[in-house]
């Protein structure tokens, strides 16, 4: 407990405070941005596999559409990753 109290008591310059806050929120930014696309891609690929198993002759078309869907869904997570880079390093 004493160590934490010392940490709190330690004087921090505004720049250090800002850096700490940015480093902490960078983690949250990426973590939160990954939830939705994670669920989305899982659902998308699962349904595509189901479709391919039901109709193997349509597998090529389903696969193309699946990649397109993944590309669109994944973009949200990647924007979160770019926010992470901007917060952490910029």
């Amino acid at each position: 407990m004493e160590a934490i109290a010392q940490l709190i008591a330690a004087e921090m310059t505004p720049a250090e405070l800002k850096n700490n806050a940015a480093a902490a929120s960078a983690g949250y930014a990426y973590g939160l941005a990954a939830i939705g696309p994670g669920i989305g891609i899982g659902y998308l690929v699962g349904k595509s596999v189901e479709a391919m198993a039901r109709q193997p002759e349509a597998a090529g078309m389903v696969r193309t559409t699946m990649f397109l869907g993944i590309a669109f869904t994944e973009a949200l997570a990647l924007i979160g990753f770019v926010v992470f880079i901007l917060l952490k390093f910029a």
Partner: protein
Amino acid sequence: MIALDFPEINSILVWKDLFPSFNKIALIAVLAAVISITIFLLAVRQDHKEAPKGIRNFAEVIVEFIEDGVVMQTMGKEGLAWTPFLMTMFLFIYLCNVPGIIPFFQMPATARMAVPLFLALMVWVIYNVTGIKHQGIGGYLKSTLFPPGVPKALYILVTPIEFISAIIVRPFSLAVRLFANMMAGHILLVTFALLSEALFQAKDKILIPVGILPFFMLVFLTSFEVLVAFLQAYIFAMLTAVYIGGATHPEH
């Protein structure tokens, strides 16, 4: 426990200039262009009446892949005229991605925002110009901003969304997707390489065998990056084909 400092972002991304205004990224981009041009110049020198051999086989595999995997899936037969453009895009992006895992290069050129941004802007200009050429400026704006089959009252909502998605979001997401994928892979490789190095050289002898774990992760991620480099080039070419196809044939 372990002294592990992640290097400044600039030290893993910005390279010293080889000579003024020409750094390693530019070298990789130039090499990618030169290699892809050389492959096809060598392939076209062979007599096309004989059975293809050597490098011509390789070139024909690439052409067939783009025709069957990208053009026929998205644009159909009338889109085959776009094969050379899409193949140039695919090859250039792939050869820019792959140096991320080649030793001594160790940096995908597309992990700098300038390269994907320029490619995405080029695609943006091309699909808009194609749409205007095929449908006229009024028809193109009508088919993108006022999609048919929507109740009239909903156009207040649909038109701004369609405008933002077609004009701003498409090139932005095209560029950011490529950039962020390659950047994320690069940073992951750097992280695990640094972690295993720090563990292998740790002062505590007990930590040294633990370093095998991040090293295996590094090997696994390297083989994963082979897949990502290909997939991102494929998706970029595919989305380009989808956008061009949508601009030429609004009913789809």
